[in-house]
């Protein structure tokens, strides 16, 4: 296992380096002068001293490779620079936004599992009409953008349920009940598409396992159908489902960007939109780096979990 972990880490190093490079380059693709873009053309023209100050603060007077290495060295120390719009350190901004996004993402995964897995199991074990309905629902659920689900919830469900607050977020630590209530609509908006993806993968994972010899044996010795599914099929089908969940991290974070904006949740997605709106490019850069590395780490953990659960992977 240790050898497997080490080999995965070796594979990861160049990818992480690439992520830092890409996060840096994306912002440098800005046509024209970054400092002018940050300040706005008008105030840049009237205030050349201020412009020069921003240039110096962003290190724009140094050659490109020095800028990159300086930024990278800072990032390694945990210093991503200072946000131009929020006037606090970028790491500090990310730290305060992260819990909201993590909570939203985890609750959405939970919702997706609770709703999606049973649908997938039904489709695989009952077949026929169930299968047809599931495939249609899956296509619709995947094709339905989270922001439209949010719109539908606000239009049709929210007026009927005045006890669910739609805005005015409070942190979990401050008022857990209200926090969870506020999270209902955002979680359903993101979780529905996820549930359908999970249903689809559960269906095919369960179908695969149903064809295994040990399931035939279990049936032959007279176990009831639900017992076979529960004891023999689900445990073995769970592994591919977990790995699919790991791969959905990026999708999940994409969803949080737009849903946090709609429901005014102070998470990473809202932060990146703030960065873009106020041309706070260092902030956007920092979030790119943070999420890129975060996704790679989550994928690594999923791989390790997978290898831990299924020893065949390690010797591959």
């Amino acid at each position, binding site marked *: 296992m240790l050898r497997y972990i080490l080999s995965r880490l070796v*594979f990861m190093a*160049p*990818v992480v380096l*690439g*992520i830092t490079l*890409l996060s840096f380059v*994306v*912002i440098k*693709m*800005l*046509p024209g002068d970054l400092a002018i873009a940050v300040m706005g053309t008008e105030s840049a023209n009237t205030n050349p001293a201020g412009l020069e100050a921003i240039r110096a603060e962003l290190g724009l007077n140094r050659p490109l490779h020095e800028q990159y290495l300086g930024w990278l060295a800072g990032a390694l120390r945990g210093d991503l620079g200072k946000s131009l719009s929020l006037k606090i350190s970028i790491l500090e901004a990310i730290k305060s936004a992260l819990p909201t996004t993590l909570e939203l993402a985890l609750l959405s995964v939970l919702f997706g599992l609770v709703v999606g897995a049973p649908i997938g199991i039904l489709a695989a074990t009952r077949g026929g009409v169930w299968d047809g309905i599931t*495939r249609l629902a899956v*296509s*619709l659920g*995947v*094709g*339905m*953008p989270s*922001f*439209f689900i949010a*719109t*539908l919830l*606000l*239009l049709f469900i929210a*007026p009927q349920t005045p006890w669910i607050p739609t805005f005015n977020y409070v942190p979990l630590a401050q008022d857990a009940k209200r926090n969870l209530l506020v999270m209902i609509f955002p979680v359903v908006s993101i979780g529905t598409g996820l549930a359908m993806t999970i249903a689809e993968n559960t269906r095919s994972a369960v179908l695969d396992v149903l064809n295994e010899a040990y399931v035939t044996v279990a049936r032959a010795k007279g176990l009831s159908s639900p017992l076979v599914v529960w004891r023999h099929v689900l445990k073995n089908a769970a592994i591919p489902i977990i790995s699919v969940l790991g791969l959905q*991290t*990026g*999708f*999940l*974070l*994409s*969803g949080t*960007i*737009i849903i946090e*904006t*709609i429901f005014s949740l102070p998470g990473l997605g809202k932060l*990146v*939109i703030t960065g*873009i709106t106020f041309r706070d*490019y260092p902030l*956007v850069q920092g*979030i*790119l780096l943070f*999420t*890129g*590395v975060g*996704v*790679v780490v989550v*994928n690594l953990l999923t791989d390790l979990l997978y290898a831990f659960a299924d020893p065949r992977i390690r010797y591959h």
Partner: protein
Amino acid sequence: MTSQGWPVPIQAPAARRATARPVRALRTLVARYPLLLVGAVLVGVLVVLAVAAPLLVRNSPYQIGLGPSMSPPSANLWFGTDKLGRDLFSRIVYGSRTTLLVSIPSVLLAMVFGLGLGLSAGYFGGRTDQVIMRLMDILLAFPSLLLALAIVAVLGPSIRNLLLTIGILYIPSMARVVRGPVLAAKEREYITAARTIGAGTWRILLRHVLPNILSPIIVDATLATSRAILVESALSYLGLGAPPPNPSWGEMLSSSRQFMTLAPWSALFPGLAIVYAATAFILLGNGLRDWLDPRRR
């Protein structure tokens, strides 16, 4: 090396049978894969809407003040009007142009680069494979919407930048889809046979490997189109889509937000248009998969 390569081209059927055969073949196809028919019809309708948009609408999608702001659906204005009093039906029909103009070229772009990279990685293997796939991993590490947001915000929103950005986003998944079957195909006897009779690398790749991996590529491209539609509408929802006055479904949906409770139709119709377009390509992709690639069902 002339054209006696393998496989041997199939002889054209006799002319008399040729007229009856496609019809019967099509009927069998539809009976066995109903999803394919549903998907094809839905996508077909979308394409017709986009191509024939000027013939289908009564009012210009750009004309301001056709009716009062946010007026409800009526005989003349089927879907009502938007904030500026523009015909919402016209804007939704024309919006299909924006959507397809961004999503289809971006998927084609991803396909061309993904094919090149996936073929090279799978066929040459070794260090080439390592380098290409690690590069793809870097792109895959970012949540697609986040990377697209950052790039479009930096370059400025325009149809060209949108399709370039979304195209780049989907290169990695396409390269992965291509690489797998290439790895499997290159070990087959017919490739060894082609190599033995002296076929060059490019000839083998294009004549022998490519035709055998087309099915998964077509399926993935169709499904990628639906994802491209969703990313495009998400970007335009966040205000980084095709610049105004281009009609774009995501922007219509987001600008209806403040009037939603008073004018629910202004949110419903653009939203339904997005769902329709994305689902149409998903159904077509699944239908194609059932037909072309039955093992992956």
